[in-house]
């Protein structure tokens, strides 16, 4: 009779994983606060809270998304303590049902082929992203830089996946508008 050794679950090296995600965490913090000192504080505090929490209740899921969630909650708390809320954008002009992608297509000047002409420098795109409200900057970073899925982003932001999709659409539409402004020049 062949005896199978029970497969032992690999112990998770949380510390190592935290270090592996440090650059990503810092990038996320920068996208939220745009201030290196504040971003450093946010990252350090997020790591500290994560470690303390992990020792009591070791996380079992996606550690990176979990770290991002902790960092975002800290940021929101900091914003509240500053007596001003996170940066919000007006949704009155368009509901989640409207697709700003389609709206943009009706204006030929906003067509991506114009905006993405080879002459558009990457620096312009970076500048356009930087000029977006935090709520758009962060979702662009979460999706296109960090590669989180809609469900993961929904978990980090604490909202339904449908909201992620509509917010991402609005973020791209806003980005196009900013690119158009840059494209037109001063």
């Amino acid at each position, binding site marked *: 009779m062949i005896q199978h050794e029970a497969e032992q679950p690999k112990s998770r090296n949380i510390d190592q994983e935290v270090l592996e995600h440090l650059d990503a965490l810092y990038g996320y913090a920068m996208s939220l606060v745009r*201030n290196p000192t504040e971003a450093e504080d946010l990252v350090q505090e997020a790591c500290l809270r994560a470690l303390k929490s992990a020792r009591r209740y070791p996380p079992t899921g996606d550690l990176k998304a979990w770290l991002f969630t902790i960092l975002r909650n800290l940021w929101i708390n900091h914003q509240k303590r500053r007596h001003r809320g996170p940066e919000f954008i007006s949704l009155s002009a368009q509901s989640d049902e409207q697709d700003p992608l389609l709206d943009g297509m009706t204006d030929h000047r906003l067509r991506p*082929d114009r905006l993405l002409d080879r002459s558009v420098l990457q620096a312009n795109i970076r500048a356009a992203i930087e000029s977006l409200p935090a709520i758009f900057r962060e979702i662009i970073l979460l999706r*296109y830089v960090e590669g989180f899925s*809609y469900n993961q982003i929904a978990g980090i932001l604490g909202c339904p996946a449908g909201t992620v999709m509509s917010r991402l659409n609005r973020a791209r539409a806003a980005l196009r508008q900013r690119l158009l402004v840059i494209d037109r020049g001063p």
Partner: protein
Amino acid sequence: MASDHVIDHITLYLDDELQEEERAAFEAHVHQCPECWARLEEERELVMAIRQAASPHRAPQYLRARIEAMLRRSSLTDGVRRVRLWMPLAAAVVMLMSAMVWLAVRSGLHPAQPSAFARLAVNTHQRYTRGQLPLEITSHSPQEISRWFAGKLPFNLKLPDYPESPGQSKPYEVVGARLIGFQQDYAAYVAYRLRQRPISLLVTSETVARPTGGEEIAWRGLRFHFDAIDGWKVLTWSDNGLTYALVSDFEERGQASCIVCHPGAEDRPMLEGLNRR
């Protein structure tokens, strides 16, 4: 599949959020619809441009080193310590610091490097004075701040309330507080103001940080470590299981100023002792 329906799905397709059947239907449509194909390519280009442009940040090396150090210190201090009235007057200690600066300069000593805790205290003070460090609680009430700290620290912190004489206002006031990450735990940060000048107090467990470096001065059974860092004066000491760091930009002052904050008869021997130094 109608063309507008396909446009709705472009984002989902590029973000790999379509179910297998939806994906197949989408691909079948765009392969026979030049308009949708063109829009898909345009959108793909935009996404690629965003990805290429949004180069990821790199955490500064010193931040990484700080986090690594925090991770190495895995043992947490779980003991709960009761703080006695450790701060019967922050302002008076600041005065003491001023005297120590004078002593250090006069004696021509070359103090040892300041401790990491002293450097953190100065760094925290600098950020606070620049408006880069928001307080988590803003209050002039030491009791309220003490309640806010309850349960957040591995030790109990009870801020003393300076006894006001009738008709006399406080020479200093507490402004607010917050938590500061240090090693693998939190330190308590308390912001004070003495005649509109900021004073920062940082408190942690003695097992996490011990005062070292700087000019060491024994006084009333305690050993104070004085440092001048980037123009700021910082005094660190341990007492009753906790380590303190007090930061200010106070200049040298006379004894009379100390008496303003130490009006009680019990403080006079201490002030006289300081004067003899």
